[in-house]
């Protein structure tokens, strides 16, 4: 990463965004759609973590679990309960998809906190695919399960008649904003945290400020650990909420 000084100039040099540059892993060629890049690498590491935790960790199928297996069981129980509580019993069959989303976001967020790592979830391309994927899937499920009755979600039967069209317009707008907010929330949180850490790191170039800077980085890092977990949780629970709307459109 080009976080060093630009050559000339003695002042502080900030390149907080350089950590988000996508680069080919091998050579300097162009980034084609199939090129293995640093994004590919960290997605694959996340994938390997999932495999290690959920396949290797549960290999024993022990009634009395090992430590790794009990961690996998905690993840399973946590997301399963969330899906069941939020979407109801008929949402349970989408549990593997929601688990996939959660684990990908969770491990991407956590692995991105390793110094020099790349954060796939900071990339709009990644979070937009996740967000719009959820949006399209939920909309399709809504129409398949409920037919035209799915549109009743936008038509408030409890509201006074003259307000209903206005509310319907607002509801439709908010429905279509969902994937945007869903994806930008995640990318924005991860981007902001990583960029802030980089900015504080750049301040460490001044010897007097360096201790403060390091303390600040430590504090922000702790906050980022929290954010990584919370954003994975928020992304997942919002997916469950949207899925609930699709399964039970009546308010």
């Amino acid at each position, binding site marked *: 990463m*080009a976080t060093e000084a*630009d050559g000339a100039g003695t002042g502080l040099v900030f*390149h907080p*965004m*350089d950590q*988000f*540059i*996508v680069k080919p892993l091998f050579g*300097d*060629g*162009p*980034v*084609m*759609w*199939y*090129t*293995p*890049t640093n*994004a*590919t690498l960290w*997605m*694959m590491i*996340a*994938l390997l973590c*999932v*495999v290690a935790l*959920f*396949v290797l960790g*549960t290999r024993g*199928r*022990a*009634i009395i*679990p090992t430590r790794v*297996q009990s961690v*996998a*069981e905690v993840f*399973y*129980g946590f997301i399963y309960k969330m899906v069941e509580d939020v979407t109801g019993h008929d949402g349970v069959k989408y*549990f*593997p*998809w929601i*688990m*996939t*989303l959660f*684990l*990908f976001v969770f491990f991407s967020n956590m692995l991105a906190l390793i110094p020099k790592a790349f954060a*796939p979830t*900071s*990339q*709009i*391309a*990644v979070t937009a*695919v*996740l967000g719009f994927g959820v949006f399209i899937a939920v909309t399709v499920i809504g129409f398949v399960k409920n037919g035209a009755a799915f549109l009743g979600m936008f038509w408030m039967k409890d509201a006074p008649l003259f307000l209903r069209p206005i509310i319907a317009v607002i509801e439709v707008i908010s429905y279509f904003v969902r994937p945007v907010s869903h994806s930008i929330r995640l*990318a924005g949180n991860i*981007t902001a945290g990583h960029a802030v850490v980089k900015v504080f790191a750049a301040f460490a170039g001044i010897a007097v400020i360096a201790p403060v800077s390091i303390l600040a980085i430590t504090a922000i890092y702790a906050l980022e650990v929290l954010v990584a977990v919370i954003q994975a949780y928020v992304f997942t629970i919002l997916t469950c909420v949207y899925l609930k709307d699709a399964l039970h459109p009546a308010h």
Partner: protein
Amino acid sequence: MATETTAADAAHSAAEAGACVGANGSAIGMPQLCVDWMPNQVFWLVVTLVVIYFVLSRIALPRIGSVLAERQGTISNDLAAAEELKLRAVEAERAYNEALVQARANANKIVADAKAEIQKELDAALAKADADIAAKSAESEARIAEIRAGAMDAVTIVAKDTAKELVLALGGNADARAVTAAVSARLKG
């Protein structure tokens, strides 16, 4: 962009970095929004998600689900077994108490029986002893009566003899028959 570099380098650099990375290797604007890299990221993201999905849905989640279900089953089986054992313990305690009461009753009965038997034997022995004592005392009385009769006879003889001797000593002429008659008369008297 890299305007000072050679044409080849510029082409290379442009192809490599596109519109998102400057000539000095730094980001231009926000690289997260760079359109050039999106197909790459989308492709690898989809690959990753699909692999994670298949790993989870084919291997990991059914396995964990079955382990959890099995554990739940084991726990409820153990609880049921514990419940059953508890019932059996209560049952055993009840049976024990019953047996205790029974044994106590039996013991009382045995004691009563033994007492009755002993009493019976005692009664019999007492009766026998009484009978023996009665027989013995009857026998003794008979002997005493006999001895008493013998003593009376002896007294009669001694009295006759003494009377005869007295008559003789006094210088009389003792007629044996007269003395005997006189003594007998006196003895009856």
